[in-house]
């Protein structure tokens, strides 16, 4: 956040929500990044992500009942892939918070939150399809947009498209 | 020449003496003692009426739907697209006749045939005018009800033979639907037959003639008659698979139902059979409840509208017009109403139409015995 600028109301709400989570989970989550466009924190202890998600959804002061978006992201500089979850408390507190979770680029795996928010089900499949990280505990982790027998994960920055697919030349 | 004269001399005047000679020769044409010539003579006008009614039925449907939907409809072939159906048939004849490799070939081919024949067999007992009926059976109405059910066989053959899941769904739905709706339809027609006291279609028509025109029609002869009339009309929609009961071919659910796999002329045959049966049920309802070939116009004092507009040729005119009117109503409904669901369709048949058909049956019987 730039100096001298007034902190907006929605950002203040996010800070309050973050402090509750921080209080409960301590060092499992990182410090808060209070930017105006998308305030977020990162989950450092990846194995506790499902627990954090459940806490965020069910705590009476948080009630993040709505997962707006779950996007896979590639961080080639850190040799990591991750997901960004935009959570929101729809109709209750209307506060928003983004969560980042990262895992290793090769064969990395993250806990699934498909049972916490149904939205995550297809979005995690999409992230798996595009980035290749697996989600442990996901009910049906198959490719969703690409064909089942597609090679590679297209949204990785170093992705090279396969030469042929069932005898069809792929690069045009 | 006045209109009265036209009705008295209309048949020989229109046919001409040359045609008479020709027809008389044909009548005399007996092979091995069978009156083959007579059959041909009777079949020619029937086939023409049927084919014209259905080609223009298709054209009419397109034009009527276009009118209801703020469109123009076919406009290119002929003036106002009047030759469109003929062009369509010509196109469909030229198409490759595709039989899917996994289909049951025999059933696949025979299905449309059965459908087409079944929908046209009932034309034999339709009295097109006082002077013309294909086969004047004394159980004509019974025959007409029974022959409609034969279509089920064609539909089932087509649906099963296609070896397609959608077609099978369509066929099974269709069988369930037509067999169920036979019951209210037949009971409703029985009410009409009870009022006439005969199953002879020609006789039913004759019994409804009189100088007051429409007042002699069975629909207006008893205060209950509107109930079987409505029941039969609704049930007939289901029997010929028209909206809102077009679930056997429901295009948004079953792609095209039992004729999903058909193309070319086989498709055209199924399509024409549908229009054939549409006219058939319309004709049956107008014979039983609306006087068949009788003119609906009454004689008002010296203005003898009824006498002027009755006669063999006028009869054919009224008969076909009444049939077309009901076809129009069927189209009107089709382009207005959504489709019922399968279970709602069965609910309507077994829990609404059938009980009411029985009630109207009993009431008509009471009326016939005690009232007049």
């Amino acid at each position, binding site marked *: 956040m730039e100096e001298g600028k007034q902190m907006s109301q929605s950002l203040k709400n996010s800070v309050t929500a973050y402090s509750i989570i921080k209080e409960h989970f301590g060092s499992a989550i990182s410090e808060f990044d209070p*930017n*105006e*466009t*998308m305030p977020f924190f990162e989950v450092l202890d990846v194995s506790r992500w499902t627990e954090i998600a459940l806490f965020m959804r069910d705590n009476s002061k948080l009630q993040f*009942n*709505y*997962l*707006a*978006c779950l*996007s*896979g*992201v*590639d961080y080639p500089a850190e040799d990591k892939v991750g997901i*960004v979850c*935009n959570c929101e408390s*729809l*109709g209750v507190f*209307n506060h928003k918070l*983004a969560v980042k979770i990262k895992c290793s680029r090769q064969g990395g795996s993250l806990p699934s939150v498909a049972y916490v*928010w*149904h*939205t995550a*089900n*297809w*979005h995690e499949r999409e992230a798996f399809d*595009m980035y290749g990280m697996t989600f442990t505990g996901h009910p049906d982790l198959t*490719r*969703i*947009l*690409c*064909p089942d027998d597609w090679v590679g994960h*297209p*949204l990785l920055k170093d992705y090279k498209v396969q030469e042929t697919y069932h005898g069809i030349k792929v690069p045009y | 020449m006045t209109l009265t004269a036209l009705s008295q001399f209309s048949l020989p005047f229109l046919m001409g003496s040359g045609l008479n000679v020709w027809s008389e020769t044909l009548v005399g044409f007996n092979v091995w003692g069978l009156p083959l010539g007579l059959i041909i003579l009777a079949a020619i006008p029937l086939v023409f009426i049927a084919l014209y009614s259905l080609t223009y039925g298709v054209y009419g449907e397109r034009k009527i*739907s276009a009118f*209801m*939907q*703020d*469109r123009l409809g076919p406009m290119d072939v002929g003036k106002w697209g009047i030759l469109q159906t003929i062009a369509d048939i010509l196109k469909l004849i030229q198409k490759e006749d595709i039989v899917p490799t996994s289909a049951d070939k025999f059933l696949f081919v025979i299905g449309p045939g059965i459908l087409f024949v079944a929908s046209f067999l009932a034309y034999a007992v339709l009295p097109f005018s006082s002077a013309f009926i294909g086969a004047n059976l004394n159980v004509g109405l019974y025959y007409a009800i029974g022959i409609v059910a034969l279509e089920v066989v064609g539909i089932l053959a087509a649906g099963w033979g296609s070896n397609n*899941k959608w077609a099978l*769904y369509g066929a099974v739905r269709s069988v369930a639907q037509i067999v169920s709706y036979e019951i209210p339809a037949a009971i409703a027609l029985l009410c009409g037959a009870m009022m006439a006291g005969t199953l002879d279609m020609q006789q039913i028509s004759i019994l409804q003639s009189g100088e007051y025109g429409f007042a002699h029609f069975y629909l207006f002869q008893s205060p209950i008659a509107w109930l079987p009339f409505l029941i039969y009309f609704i049930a007939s929609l289901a029997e010929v698979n028209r*909206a*809102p009961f*077009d*679930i056997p071919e*429901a*295009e*948004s*659910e079953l*792609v095209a139902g039992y004729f999903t796999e058909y193309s070319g002329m086989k498709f055209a045959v199924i399509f024409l059979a549908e229009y054939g049966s549409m006219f058939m049920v319309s004709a049956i309802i107008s014979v039983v409840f609306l006087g068949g070939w009788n003119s609906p116009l009454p004689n008002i004092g010296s203005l003898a509208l009824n006498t002027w507009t009755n006669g063999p040729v006028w009869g054919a005119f009224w008969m076909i017009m009444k049939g077309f009117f009901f076809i129009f109503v069927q189209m009107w409904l*089709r*382009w*207005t*109403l*959504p*489709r*019922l*669901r*399968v*279970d*709602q369709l069965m609910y309507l048949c077994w829990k609404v139409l059938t009980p009411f058909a029985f009630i109207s049956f009993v009431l008509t019987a009471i009326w016939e015995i005690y009232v007049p």
Partner: protein
Amino acid sequence: MQELDTARQASVRVNRKSDNRVVIEKDLMTEQMVLAMGPQHPSTHGVLKLECFTDGEVITEAIPCLGYLHRCFEKTCERVDYPAVVPYTDRLDYLAAMNSEFAYAIAVEKLLDIEIPRRVEFIRVIVAELNRIASHLVAIGTYGIDLGAFTPFLFCFRDREIILGLLEWASGARMLYNYIWIGGLAYDVPSDFLKRVKEFVAYFRPKAVELCNLLTENEIFVKRTWGIGIMPADVAINYGWSGPMLRGSGVQWDLRRNDPYSIYPELDFKVPVPDGKSSVVGDCLSRHLVRAYEMDESLKIIEQCLDKIPSSEGFNSRSAIPKRIRPKAGEVYGRAENPRGELGFYIESDGKSTKPIRCKARSSCFVNLSAMKDMSKGQLIPDLVAIIGSIDIVLGEVDR
């Protein structure tokens, strides 16, 4: 006889394999039929494929298979500049291209932190609301077709045609406009445009009533949709539903009101939710009714905009567009209320490149459709069609 026994054993084996099947009578030897509904089916609204497991006409499970229209939107975004993404967003929800562009513009402008001229905002809202009406017209018309009513569809398309004509006049394209740019508009609207929009609003009001009489109040239509595919509000939120779908479940949630953007806070409009009398809250009919009411609200919004819009004197629609769009490093999740729900863009910028590092489209149809598997259990095939129709998917947005 022996063949019969073999068949019976075979059927029993099949029963054991499938876990979710309800065995009614073993002697009937009923088997599950796998029915591939789509990708070339008339009522899957494009190229959606539903793998249906059916027991007679009852669906035990329907699994949506996607990807037939996948066009690598997100990969393409990483290769082109920020402004060049706009035409691609058109192709997401091609029935409401203005709204898609609007959402993308909002997201990038949030990242750029720039001021937009007021007239631009008004024009954006007018075209977006026009597009919303056009989109809802398609939704309602095709829903009629799904249930077997043909005529409302053509009535809807007749009126939609006028909107497309207006938008074509403004942008030069009929469906994929590329009109709302980051920081401005491609052009100011033509001189008589606002007058024509006013005329359209006056023309469309009675037509909406006519449509309502023909379809929404039709007894058969109500019977087909009443109580079908009920989605409770909490489950709907958990599924991430948004837009008319969520409002159909009785949650008064509209991003134009609850997370306001552009000039929506200044405008007076209602967020319609089903009242529970004319429909069961959360069923197909509620979702349909919400769409029908929303068209009215959009007309209201357009009328207010027409009254308040600043004059075009000295107005340049491109004045606020940066010469070179290179946002500072950071992420943004920008979203807008599309006709089908919340369309969000997650954009990540590294502060150096003129291309986004990551641009993810959170499409409302994708999320709404994910509830299909739950909603279809135990429904009849005709009801399944009614449910798909009420979700109102655009496969361009689902598959991206």
